[in-house]
């Protein structure tokens, strides 16, 4: 029984995902807790990105736009009207959904490079709009959230609540992702990514499928945007909506394994700490940590284009195969 469960690899991955919550507790050091929070947050964000782009194999390099919408909506509502970020998060989700419907409606039928570039274009336009509508968004000056701890303000003194919040966010997105894999929507999406015409001939409504997944992906990304704003407590268009953020979603997902529910999480669990630690400890030579990260990614793409997850699964099979064999594990 246990053996069977263990060999079901999603089970092991779920264990990893769920158990990761203890990390911030066993690492009392706030710096490591901070890295853990970033790891959870980025895992959730990369998984959200993966929900559309990963399964459907259509790269969006503009998802930072939704990160920005989430961050700005909740922050503006909070600063101007005192509306709790919990509600602001939902409002951000609604606005992101509308934006994704408009953007998706115009771009989802585009293929390959056209789609990729159109996502960049929309994100850049949104960034410029945010910078120039200074009366509303404070433009390039950015917005600072005053430090007033409290649950309704989604602000805490310690790191643990943030860690729990980002962890819950990650788990929710993961759960949605796993459910998606076992649903009509998921099957349709993957089939569309493999071969659109063949999928349509099997009754897959490509426009609807893609739009639904795209909106889901955007909304979940925007929730992450609110968490991001509440944690860093300072947002500005150039850093929140930068193409660098969009690319980071993709790099985490591809490193872990694009188009799999747990791939982006694994990618974030490995790369987010590594890149933060590299930046922290290789500070003497500027550029070195970016260089190492880039080289690692090139190596992954050249030699393991499916990402780390399949390797990890092999490893599990190997390890647990050994444990399970001697008959102890009844």
């Amino acid at each position, binding site marked *: 029984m246990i053996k069977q469960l263990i060999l079901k690899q999603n089970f092991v991955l779920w264990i990893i995902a769920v158990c990761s919550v203890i990390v911030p507790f066993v690492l009392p050091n706030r710096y490591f807790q901070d890295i853990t929070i970033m790891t959870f947050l980025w895992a959730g964000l990369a998984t959200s990105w993966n929900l559309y782009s990963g399964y459907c*194999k259509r790269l969006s390099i503009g998802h930072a736009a939704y990160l920005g919408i989430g961050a700005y909506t909740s922050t503006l509502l909070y600063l101007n009207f005192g509306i709790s970020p919990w509600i602001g998060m939902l409002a951000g989700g609604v606005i992101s959904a509308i934006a994704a419907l408009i953007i998706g409606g115009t771009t989802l039928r585009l293929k390959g490079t056209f789609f990729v570039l159109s996502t960049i274009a929309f994100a850049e336009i949104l960034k410029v709009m945010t910078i120039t509508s200074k009366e509303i968004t404070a433009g390039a000056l950015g917005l600072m959230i005053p430090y007033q701890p409290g649950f309704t303000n989604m602000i805490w003194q310690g790191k643990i609540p943030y860690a729990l919040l980002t962890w819950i966010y990650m788990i929710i997105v993961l759960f949605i992702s796993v459910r998606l894999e076992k649903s009509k929507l998921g099957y349709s999406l993957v089939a569309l990514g493999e071969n659109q015409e063949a999928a349509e001939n099997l009754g897959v409504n490509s426009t609807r499928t893609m739009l639904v997944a795209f909106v889901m992906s955007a909304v979940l990304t925007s929730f992450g945007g609110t968490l991001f704003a509440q944690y860093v407590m300072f947002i500005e268009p150039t850093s929140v909506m930068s193409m660098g953020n969009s690319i980071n979603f993709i790099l985490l997902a591809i490193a872990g394994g694009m188009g799999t529910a747990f791939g982006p999480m694994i990618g974030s669990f490995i790369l987010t700490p590594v890149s933060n630690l590299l930046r922290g400890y290789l500070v003497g030579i500027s550029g070195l940590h970016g260089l190492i990260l880039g080289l690692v990614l090139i190596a992954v793409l050249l030699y393991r284009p499916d990402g780390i997850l399949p390797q990890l699964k092999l490893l599990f099979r190997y390890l647990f195969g050994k444990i399970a064999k001697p008959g102890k594990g009844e």
Partner: protein
Amino acid sequence: MEQVLQVLISGILSGGIYALASVGLALIFGVVGLVNFAHGEYLMLAMYIAYWIYNFSGLDPYQSLIINLAVMAVIGYITFKVIMERVLDSDHSIQMLLTLALSMVLQNLALMFWKADYRNIRIDMTNDTMNLGFLTFNTPRVLAFLIAIGASVLLYLYLQKTFTGAAMRAISQNGKAAQLMGINIKRTYGLAFVIGTTLVGLAGLLISPIYPAYPTVGASFSTLAFIVVVLGGLSSVPGAIFGGLVIGVVESLAGYFAGPAYQQAAYFLLFILVLVFKPNGLFGRS
């Protein structure tokens, strides 16, 4: 009116550079089918090489043109052999991500080698202007424009008139058929990639007297070149030239009428409009 004409001219002059940066990408995209997000990084490398030569030997970018292009060709060849050749058959998304990672590596390498300093090449000509009636032309920009257009036209003629050029066109239209006709695909791919990187290198060295080199200078050119290429109808060289000029003019006009903050947004907007209403590009056949 005079002002608007002057704005148009300045847009066209920038457009020439955009065109040159983009024809290389169009060639790589058309022939090799590779979506190269590291394209702009070669422009950055060429600017640094120009700066280096200038600093060590005093040769200005125009005098060091041949050496610089030769180095760029070698760099292009190495990239192709070491990285690109291995992913020719891979998924588009893998190729795209690989070039993204490559641009990350090149930018950070530049940061390590040359630090973040802005490297200026200041030659006597930098601020020279020529006047034609009420119009003013900045000499290095005019020179850059002329060389850029010249090189693009040369590339066009090369594709039209030579055997290798014909082979490239054949591959870009139908790779499999070309292979059946006995064209050495890999070699042609390599050549196209090298020509592409050399051309964007040329663009880099042409702007080096006007604009300083720094590690992230190429980043914005990659996206820009892509947009030009899409506007021009993907693999078409004349299309890329026109696309470049259009972007230059749009950027200038937007800067003049709406303000410089909207320059980029304007061509992104144009790009989306074209995708929606004319998905085959401004000059593509349907």
